[in-house]
């Protein structure tokens, strides 16, 4: 298990592993939005929570198809499925590796991008908290989507179409936490709901992912 995690992290950090692509995408988005919307701090401050959350979501999406596709191509996935590690655990580990290489860096860099978008000062802590609580759900749901489309040609586009609707509740509650935080309102309710979605997804979706993965390997 640890070995699988370490291998996936090592693969991500080695040359060609794609680490940092999502981060760069997130950064570019935060630069492009003001260029498109205009430089007024008031306007940007209003849309900043939404842009940051949508950006995090898209950055996450960008690296999803790598979760299983590479292992599928070189045969590792067949071998993993016959290995003594339960496939459910392997799937969870892969989601964790994806979060550590994509979600966590996004959480850490988000305050800097908040600065670019004139995010109100009160909202920073909630931006970090909401992304910290919400991005694991993005990785787990994305892993399910990646497992669904693993053997398919043109899987990448289909993956976005399948996964993005599943991201809606996370996005709504996550962005809501930040915008309420920005207005100085209580954030308990959306934060609790966001945490609930993450907890539920982490608990249940690996079973669904492992199931569809087995079907795809058959």
């Amino acid at each position, binding site marked *: 298990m640890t070995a699988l995690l370490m291998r996936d992290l090592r693969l991500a950090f080695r040359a060609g592993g794609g680490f940092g692509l999502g981060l760069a995408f997130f950064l570019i988005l935060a630069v492009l939005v003001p260029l498109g919307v205009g430089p007024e701090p008031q306007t940007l401050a209003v849309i900043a929570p939404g842009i940051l959350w949508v950006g995090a979501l898209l950055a996450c999406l960008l690296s999803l198809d790598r979760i299983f596709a590479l292992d599928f191509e070189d045969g590792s996935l067949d071998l993993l499925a016959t290995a003594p590690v339960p496939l459910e655990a392997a799937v969870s580990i892969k989601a964790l590796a994806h979060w550590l290489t994509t979600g966590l860096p996004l959480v850490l860099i988000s305050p800097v991008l908040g600065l670019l978008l004139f995010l109100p000062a009160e909202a920073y802590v909630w931006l970090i908290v909401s992304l910290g609580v919400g991005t694991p759900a993005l990785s787990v749901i994305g892993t399910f989507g990646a497992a669904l489309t693993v053997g398919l040609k043109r899987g990448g586009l*289909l993956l976005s179409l399948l996964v993005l609707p599943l991201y809606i509740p996370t996005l*709504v*509650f996550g962005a809501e936490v930040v915008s309420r935080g920005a207005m100085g309102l209580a954030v308990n309710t*959306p934060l609790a*709901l966001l945490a609930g979605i993450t907890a539920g997804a982490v608990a249940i979706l690996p079973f669904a992912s492992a199931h*569809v993965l087995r079907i795809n390997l058959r």
Partner: protein
Amino acid sequence: MASFWEYANPLKFMRTTDWLLPIVATAAVLVTATGLIWGFFFTPDDFRQGSTVKIVFIHVPAAMMAINAWVMMLVASLVWLIRRHHVSALAAKAAAPVGLVMTLIGLVTGAVWGQPMWGTWWAWDPRLTSFLILMLFYLGYIALWSAIDDPDTGADLTAVLCLVGSVFAVLSRYAAIFWNQGLHQGASLSVAPGTRMDWAYKAPLYTCMVGFGLIFLTLVLAGTRTEIRARRMKALVARERMA
């Protein structure tokens, strides 16, 4: 007494729908036509909304069937996952495009109705938003079916997607309610029709609902028959190759 599951046999299903389908189709046309003509021409204009209210006779049944179609797909997917009846999986496949079209009809008639009533084609009202999201789920489901070659793999994967999607669709519905209340408190556009609906409207509306239900049934039965024939054809080609 024949068991219900016997109809899960493709042959039995085809034989039964052979005579059932024309009856259901005729009933669908008759009931829907009755309901619509009744609704459009033999109901009084609403004192507030005028004659525009009559679009309700298409809008509400379509919206209702859009949701029911997904529920039917969910049940059919469960039946496939648990009992492995091919007809069930194919019925779910056949229902998806019908559900998608119903969702579209619901959205379009809603926009047409909303324009004179609210002065806008679209509002990010929770109910409207939920329907837009439902449409995305239908699109994903149909796209996944069409992307997979092997029919059994396709049935398995789409069934799991349907289950997971249902959970997230319900979550999205509540998220949409929460989201709009949270941002635009007070600025509400009530879409609830029939809050004080008279029987003069209710009777034709119910007729239309039954009619749309029958239309859905007709299309799903016809679609399932097509899918069964398509699979049969695949199987025959495979036989040729094996022999």
